């Protein structure tokens, strides 16, 4: 029973020694190392969050640009990767929320409840797209810390990485995941009144 839900252990990011200059900024070499080692997984996470590769890359670049141009507070210097992930995810959540407010995402998602049963060509694809819209809308509605941990886990980050990125204790990751999942399901039901069957 259990084996079916066990997941393969995700690869962990290699440890990185960062060099922060006296002025509180990352050295060029450290910045480059961090970029190369972090970018793929960060964009993957953002792509999952936003649904568009181009937008995910823009948000990732924006986060890296902040890192490049910001004097890091002393508290962030020991865990720059975590700072970067949190910054990028917050930018992504902001973007998702802005889209939900200003675009037709919410309207489209709610309309999809009544129209998803129509038999038509490419139905599977349509259903998947509607599911994605709904999931992203739910993510934009739940607490940012819940969205962060769910997306990190869904993107294959280990508990150790999640604890590091979100600066929480390793032993609390499981509990936080449970809360986030419960929050997500509750929000999803409130928004759409049904549980998605996948």
């Amino acid at each position, binding site marked *: 029973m259990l084996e079916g839900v066990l997941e393969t252990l995700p690869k962990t990011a290699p440890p990185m020694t960062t060099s922060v*200059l006296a*002025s509180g900024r990352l050295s060029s070499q450290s910045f480059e190392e961090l970029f190369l080692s972090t970018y793929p997984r960060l964009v993957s996470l953002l*792509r999952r969050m936003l*649904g568009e590769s181009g937008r995910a890359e823009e948000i990732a670049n924006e986060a890296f640009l902040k890192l490049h141009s910001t004097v890091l507070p002393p508290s962030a210097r020991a865990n720059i990767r975590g700072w970067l992930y949190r910054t990028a995810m917050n930018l992504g959540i902001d973007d998702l929320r802005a889209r939900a407010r200003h675009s037709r995402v919410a309207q489209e998602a709610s309309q999809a409840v009544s129209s998803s049963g129509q038999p038509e060509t490419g139905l599977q694809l349509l259903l998947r797209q509607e599911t994605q819209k709904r999931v992203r809308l739910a993510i934009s509605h739940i607490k940012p810390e819940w969205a962060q941990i769910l997306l990190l886990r869904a993107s294959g980050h280990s508990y150790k990485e999640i604890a590091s990125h979100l600066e929480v204790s390793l032993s609390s990751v499981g509990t936080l995941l449970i809360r986030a999942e419960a929050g997500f399901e509750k929000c999803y039901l409130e928004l759409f009144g049904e549980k998605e069957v996948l």
Partner: protein
Amino acid sequence: MNCPTDSTLRAYIDAELNPLEISELKNHIQTCPACQARLQAMSATALHVGSQLASLDVPLSASEMNPQIALARFRASLPAPEERLPFFALIFARRTRFAWAASFAVAVLAISLMFPATRSFAQRLLATLRVERVQTVSLDFEAMSNSGSSRQPLDALAKLLSDNAVVTTNEKVSSADSQSAASQAAGFPVRLLSNRTDEPTFEISGAHAFHLTLNRSRLQDILDQAGRPDLILPATLDGAQVSVQIPRAVAVKYGACKKQDQESTDQASTTPANSCLVLIQAPSPLINVPSDLNIQQLAEIGLQFAGWNAVKAREYCQSVDWKSTLVVPIPHNVQSYETVYINGVRGTLMHFANSNGQRPAFALVWVDHEIIYGLTGKDEASSAVQLASSLQ
């Protein structure tokens, strides 16, 4: 084994426990119906939510698969060299503050000329400007500030700054009694001149930060009054925001030096007291400006505003890496200046004139690892580089 916590059960589902923990947990669950039920419910939720989130996948892009490409793109998207503001600022005491404010105001004015009507993604971002090297420019703001006709628009610009600026940080000057205390107070490692055996004193200039929203009509009035009605500011300038952060700096003083509040703006005080040697260490100030601007053109306008002709201004601006250069205006009482190297880093050594019976003085400015250093003293200038090179 007692019943596991929810956190442990959730970690078990995600295969985040070690083999020993897994073995113990399996044995317990086999004999505990309550935990079996908990695990089943938890697994169902995890599986359902995980499946929903897994549905969010979209195809990979080329740069995502190859971070080197992404890094190259990122570098290309960084603000161009022209997107750094010149810092027409000397870092020595109050007599240069007017020049700094005036220069900044000139820069802000010129920013207005470059705003396009629409902004792309990249243009939404701010360019953060920071100092990495120094270069000189013969620009006598001090004389301008003392001459009637030239002073008027500069005064107006300074007033515009002070009227519109919202000061968010304004720390006072403080002192420290040791190198470590000064380092702690300043937030960066303070360095000393190992060539000097006497005990220095430490004065810490407080951090300052402000932001301001530009007012187009007032700026246009100032331009008109300055005899430059040909520079028409665009409507998009109105409301543009600029922010400035000036970190704490440290003045390490050797010998008999006056305190900062004892300095005056007269000729005699533009050089330190006879036995005083001052080493200033200041992290680069940061200026955030809209990134969609042409700094070279900005600088040209600034220089023309300061009295240069257009050709000379253009030639000079083309010779400067505006991306990260501290442009030091050469004061009117500088007899000569030269490029020197301090432990391989390029700096500018200025020789002050021997006037009013005083000994000649020097000022040496250089930037190392984004810390701006300034060394001023009354001695043979030839000793300046030697002193600076002994920095530890």
